[in-house]
């Protein structure tokens, strides 16, 4: 009996290749390509008066210098608004190369193509751009004031605005014995993958076709938009995603201006052109996330049960809105979290500023939602003098599926389809030692130490549609080739998808070979984002494998003269159930599945025309059938499945220096049945690491002129391994009813509540309300001083109704 691979801690099969330097990233596949470099705006807000490129033209090795005027046809139109949404009132996107105006420091204006990148940068340095300066709009406060306007022709800076409601929040708040208000802030950060963006575009003049390698999260999406922008037949454009050195959301936006400009140049110059983003470019011209200003008003009863929740938030979306409002929309639809909120209203404004655009970063708006809800839960507990876990328990959703009453990012109604929050909380308290903490705090205090315990719960809609596909082919050797259209950037797809397929086909894992992100093989796909890879492609491949198996058993049934229903596949052999004596290899079925004229090898003889004893008076391929043991299938869910989890953190704050250390970090995580617990834990650990960054280190320090002051790894601080605590995990596996495998997404889970759990712990240690993250020692030290002068309550009661 073959052991089921689903659920096994199988080590990542891709690691030996990647860890021994055999990974192949975009820059590695560029061969003899010529290189592009970009002249970028040094100003946050300006009109372009003149561009003088003459200084660049006489540099030996310069091949072309392009400004907006050189972009052909559709490529000169604005970049697409990828995800239209009813809340968007003023959709503005940029151009591949700036036209007349620049709206953030880093916006590309001129593309220089040269023999190599060194020369291209030399030439770019010789190009003079004349500007007429305008005042920059930086930060939420300045943007919502509206005295300075980012985009000409607008009266304010509002890109999107919407009110969403569940029940009647006004009467909910009116009826509440207690009402609290919280003002909250969340800082900007960014994905910062180790490999930045990159593109290699190759034009074949004979075929009139374009082949693009890109470090993207959606090869199909990029293919479609490049075909449209270059006005090429879709069949003449292919996009291949090789190994990708991390993405975390930033590579889902497409096309990036550089992807489009470089593709146009490859066609115009009839050659191969590459652009590899450097770190400074990544800081100032890719995407950021997370800046929001938030206001929460909550009404609750004596028991801490929430009766009404009214939320307003202002989201800084940067200069343009190519990826729509996914980030604020996710924030708005995740605020209620794992709780029953009888009445809820959320209103958001997504605002233009003269800063880098904002697109999803791991968590994609959900971390902001958790910050609002969980800071509120702690404030309620403080107000009523209740244990923080008790307040949460009293508000948890207990019946599933639980309708959320809101339309999610996939366009479907949101439901919490599965989970057991009470059980998760019990496990978290056990893991972290919640009930013993006060004695620990006392002991620490006696040693002159200050410690705090924090908590944050979250839900996450994962595995959004519309669909994902699988393609499986069994070669005559028994080798199983697996394709899915979505891309891979660290998710262990070569391992987990192989586990799913090997289980269904009854073949050894080593026989299964997974490829992703290549439009030449599977041109229907959406992409890898939103914790959807395992849910969507995993289920698609599960369904595809079932089809392959069905076909294999049918063919084998004819050979073995058995009913396919009585057959099983064990270790690559198809046999009558319980009777290994009547069997044939899956490889042999593959041979038989493809009737041959020519016997290319010994095994192929079995499929040739004289292999059978007598002539069959029917076609070799019957109606409705296809040659080969090869199938394609798609999975499309009704709605997103909602994963959940709870984090607890113990921090120590130095009474004198205000240095903040994380002593312990505990995670209870429910993503349904785990395909590979090792991979899930890796995702959680990595997610927490990025969450720690958002909690204690990362911010985008813009000055009032819109200059990013920390656009390098020297001053933008991401946690090192030495700053990331050991992450202790425990898993609950409540299956989702929304897909055949019952799985829920896990990719973003670790990041979403981390900053909030740490905020909760710092508040617990310091007894100072924490309303803004990230928090550094200097800021905390100043907060201590100002708090000493102010009040000591952890909440602000504005209208105690009793």
């Amino acid at each position, binding site marked *: 009996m073959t052991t089921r691979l689903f659920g096994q801690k199988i080590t990542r099969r891709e690691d030996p290749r990647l860890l021994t330097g055999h990974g192949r990233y975009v820059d590695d596949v560029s061969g003899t390509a010529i290189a592009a470099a970009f002249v970028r705006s040094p100003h946050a807000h300006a009109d372009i008066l003149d561009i003088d490129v003459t200084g660049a033209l006489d540099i030996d090795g310069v091949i072309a210098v392009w400004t907006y005027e050189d972009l052909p046809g559709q490529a000169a139109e604005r970049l697409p608004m990828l995800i239209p949404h009813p809340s968007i009132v003023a959709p503005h996107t940029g151009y591949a190369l700036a036209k007349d105006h620049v709206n953030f420091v880093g916006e590309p204006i001129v593309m220089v193509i040269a023999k190599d*990148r*060194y020369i291209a*940068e*030399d030439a770019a*340095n010789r190009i003079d751009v004349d500007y007429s300066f305008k005042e920059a709009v930086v930060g939420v406060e300045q943007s919502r004031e509206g005295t300075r306007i980012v985009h000409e022709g607008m009266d304010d800076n509002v890109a999107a605005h919407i009110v969403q409601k569940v029940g009647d929040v006004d009467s909910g708040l009116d009826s509440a014995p207690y009402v609290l208000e919280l003002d909250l802030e969340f800082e900007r950060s960014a994905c910062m993958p180790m490999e930045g963006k990159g593109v290699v575009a190759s034009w074949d003049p004979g075929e009139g076709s374009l082949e693009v390698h890109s470090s993207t999260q959606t090869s199909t999406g990029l293919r479609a938009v490049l075909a449209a922008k270059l006005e090429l037949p879709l069949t003449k454009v292919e996009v291949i995603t090789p190994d990708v050195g991390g993405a975390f959301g930033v590579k889902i936006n497409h096309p990036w201006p550089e992807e489009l400009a470089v593709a146009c140049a490859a066609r115009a110059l009839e050659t191969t052109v590459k652009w590899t983003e*450097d*770190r*400074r470019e990544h800081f100032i011209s890719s995407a950021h996330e997370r800046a929001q200003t938030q206001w929460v008003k909550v009404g609750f009863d004596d028991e801490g049960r929430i009766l009404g929740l009214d939320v307003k938030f202002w989201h800084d979306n940067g200069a343009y809105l190519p990826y729509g409002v996914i980030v604020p929309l996710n924030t708005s639809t995740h605020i209620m979290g794992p709780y029953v909120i009888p009445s809820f209203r959320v209103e958001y404004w997504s605002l233009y500023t003269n800063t880098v655009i904002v697109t999803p970063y791991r968590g994609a708006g959900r971390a902001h939602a958790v910050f609002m809800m969980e800071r509120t839960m702690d404030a309620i507990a403080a107000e009523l003098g209740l244990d923080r876990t008790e307040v949460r328990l009293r508000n948890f959703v207990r019946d599933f599926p639980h309708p959320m009453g809101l339309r999610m990012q996939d366009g479907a109604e949101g439901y919490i389809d599965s989970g057991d929050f009470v059980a998760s909380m019990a496990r978290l308290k056990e893991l*972290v*030692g919640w009930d*013993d*903490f006060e*004695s*620990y705090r006392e*002991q*620490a205090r006696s*040693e*002159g*130490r200050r410690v705090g315990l924090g908590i944050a719960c979250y839900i996450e809609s994962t595995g959004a549609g519309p669909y994902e596909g699988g393609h499986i082919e069994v070669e005559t050797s028994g080798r199983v080739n697996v394709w899915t259209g979505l891309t891979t950037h660290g998710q262990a797809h070569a391992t987990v998808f192989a586990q799913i397929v090997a289980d269904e086909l009854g073949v050894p894992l080593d026989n299964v070979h997974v490829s992703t992100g290549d439009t030449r093989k599977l041109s229907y796909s959406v992409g890898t984002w939103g914790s959807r890879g395992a849910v969507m492609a995993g289920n698609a491949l599960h369904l595809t494998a079932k089809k392959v198996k069905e076909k294999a058993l049918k063919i084998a049934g004819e050979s073995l003269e058995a009913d396919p229903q009585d057959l099983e596949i064990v270790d690559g052999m198809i046999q009558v159930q319980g009777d290994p004596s009547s069997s044939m290899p899956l490889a042999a079925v593959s041979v038989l599945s493809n009737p041959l004229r020519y016997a290319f090898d010994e095994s192929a003889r079995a499929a040739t025309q004289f292999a059978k004893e007598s002539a069959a008076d029917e076609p070799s391929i019957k109606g409705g059938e296809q040659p080969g043991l090869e199938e394609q299938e798609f999975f499309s869910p009704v709605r997103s499945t909602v994963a959940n989890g709870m984090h607890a953190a*113990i921090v*120590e704050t*130095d009474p*004198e*220096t*205000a*240095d903040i*250390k994380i*002593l*312990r970090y505990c995670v209870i995580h429910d993503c349904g049945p785990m395909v590979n617990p090792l991979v899930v834990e890796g995702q959680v650990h990595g997610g927490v690491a990025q969450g720690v960054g958002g909690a204690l*280190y990362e*911010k985008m*320090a813009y000055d009032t002129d819109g200059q990013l*002051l*920390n656009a*390098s790894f*020297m*001053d933008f*601080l991401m*946690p*090192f391994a*030495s*700053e990331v*605590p*050991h992450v*202790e995990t425990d898993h609950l596996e409540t299956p989702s009813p929304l897909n055949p495998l019952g799985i829920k997404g896990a990719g973003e889970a670790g990041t979403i509540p981390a900053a909030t759990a740490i905020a909760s712990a710092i508040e617990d240690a310091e007894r100072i309300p924490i309303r803004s993250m990230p928090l*550094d*020692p*200097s800021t905390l*030290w*100043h907060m201590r001083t100002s708090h000493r002068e102010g009040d000591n309550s952890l909440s602000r009661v504005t209208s105690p109704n009793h």
Partner: protein
Amino acid sequence: MKPPPLRIHRPTSIDQTLDLLSEHSVSGKVLAGGQSLVPVLNMRLAAPSDLIDITGVSGLDELTVSGPEGQQEIAVGATVTHRQVERSVDIARANPLLAEALRFVAHPAVRNRGTTVGSLAHADPNGEMPMILALTGGSVDVRSRRGIRTLSAEELNVGPLETCLESDELITRAIFPALPAGSRAGFDELARRSGDYGLAGVGMIVDVEDETVTGLRCGFISVTDIPEVLDLGEVVSGTQIDEVAGVVSRVVDAVRDFIDPGGDIHATADYRRHLAGVIASRLFRRLCRTDNARIQGAQVHTAGNDAGNGTDTGADAGSGTGKGIENDTGRRRA
């Protein structure tokens, strides 16, 4: 992030190096470890026409402790890496302050390439080693076609990122005096992350005779423009080492009064001033503990916890015994 065109010269002797420096004195730059220079080149913040790579020059790799007992000197040649200095047992014995401070210089990967003399020439007020040179009363030997001169730290450092070196001059080696018998030395800083520039850092030498403090000198990183030494001998002299608690506040006040920190995106000036005082206070108490008679940095850290974990808060995160609260398997379990 590519440097503009430049020529690289690879001399093999000091003479050749000095010739090249003389020839390219207008726009030449010495390249040793490159840990500060190369990023500056790639970001096009500097554009020297000629780089003179000294890593192949013979006679610059000296790393010795010499001289009679009590007057020993540590000589560190221009191509000696931070890591070599940090890991030298002889140096740790002669003056443990060097290794103690070096563990806060970036990360091992950087220390494997970066040179101690390169740090002195770079003269970054955030850098640990210029301060250590000043605090220990060290000097540098400087050569050019025009001659040889020896400069004290005070003479060398004229401003932030600015030395008195002429463009044709090369620091061939640095000399750090050994720590005198009876003196105790320590270094500490708090950085945002392990290996980052300290928000504030303090180096300290306490002279003790017969259980009585006879001298106290402090140097600072990130809170002064140049590595000046604050001599607090008058404040503390005559205090019994088990009674220093009574003078700590005067030490802290003097430190906060002496320094002149600036604010930036990582910390305000006020915080840095406060922090420098806290670090000085903790360091002074630590060095005066009676069980600290022979210098605690004497053991050489060669492996393991190398990252430099900021201030010693006296509260080791992993060592609590809180009834299952602290996970005593800690990171080892990972």
